[in-house]
């Protein structure tokens, strides 16, 4: 599952944190609503912050839910510093490559780069706001950090190739639900394969 799809899951499951956790998306900050998340794809980590989550009145008079999320590359060590209150939330959200992604009604707008910090500075916490005792938060942050670190430990003792070794996407359309013993009726089937030898360059670093 690519990062965009994971962000779409945040849009669709703001009120269902258990489902979000299934997608390797852990809530870090929840005040009146979930605001901040740690997301990972294997050993790659990201922070996501809710820039806006509101119902807007459109020009045509209809109402639509508007959700926008900031996404930032990060690392386990940065997440640890953040959750232990050693750095401002604002700094954690501005120290990596920044992207924003949004959804208005049912339409999802693809990820785009944040070109300047001014675009988002009024939508993220002010200087001095940290994960400390003064920050109201429904999330047990110590437990969250422990779980994130525990999950990350499986990668510790290995030199891991930078590129994704295999990425495969299959879309299967099933016309009618039947008993499980029946085979899939595949109408649409697409697989992006990989070549081990392409990864030899990565292997050479070992």
């Amino acid at each position, binding site marked *: *599952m690519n990062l965009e799809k994971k962000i779409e899951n945040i849009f669709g499951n703001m009120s269902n944190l258990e489902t979000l956790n299934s997608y390797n998306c852990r809530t870090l900050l929840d005040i009146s609503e979930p605001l901040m998340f740690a997301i990972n794809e294997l050993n790659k980590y990201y922070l996501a912050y809710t820039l806006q989550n509101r119902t807007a009145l459109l020009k045509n008079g209809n109402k639509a839910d508007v959700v926008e999320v900031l996404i930032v590359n990060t690392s386990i060590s940065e997440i640890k510093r953040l959750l232990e209150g050693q750095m401002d939330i604002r700094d954690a959200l501005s120290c990596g490559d920044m992207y924003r992604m949004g959804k208005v009604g049912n339409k999802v707008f693809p990820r785009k780069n944040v070109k300047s910090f001014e675009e988002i500075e009024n939508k993220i916490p002010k200087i001095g706001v940290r994960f400390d005792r003064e920050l109201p938060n429904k999330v047990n942050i110590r437990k969250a950090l422990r779980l994130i670190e525990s999950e990350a430990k499986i990668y510790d003792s290995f030199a891991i190739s930078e590129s994704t070794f295999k990425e495969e996407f299959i879309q299967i*359309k*099933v016309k009618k*639900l039947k008993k499980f013993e029946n085979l899939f009726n595949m109408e649409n089937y697409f697989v992006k394969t990989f070549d081990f030898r392409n990864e030899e360059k990565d292997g050479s670093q070992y």
Partner: protein
Amino acid sequence: MEVSINKIAYNVFEPYPNGETISVSINAKFGASKEDYSIRAFFLELNIDGEDAENGDETRNFALVARLNYQIDKNLFPNIDENEMAEDGGYFHEFLKRINEIVVNITSQDDIRRPLDIDQAIENHKSTKGE
């Protein structure tokens, strides 16, 4: 060869749809031990999502994070070359088979829905490798 499951989740949402679109996404990375290159691992994240074919509503999802640990024979494969990469490929195929067994076992608990099955993807992968 050892498969470790780090995380597994299967969520089923109601109601049962008349048709379902199933998307499967597999991300995997190769790793070698920092201390001994013959000790290796594949790390895998699998996500399967089901959507109602008519209205696009989420019907079910399955997520799994797993690792395959294995060790190659240093005498047979002293260098990282094409033969050795093929050896790693064999381990990866076996890993996917084991993962598919787990997926089918878990998603077969429901006698109305069919199990999610990535076996066909593996077969297709093998055929592209000329096996």
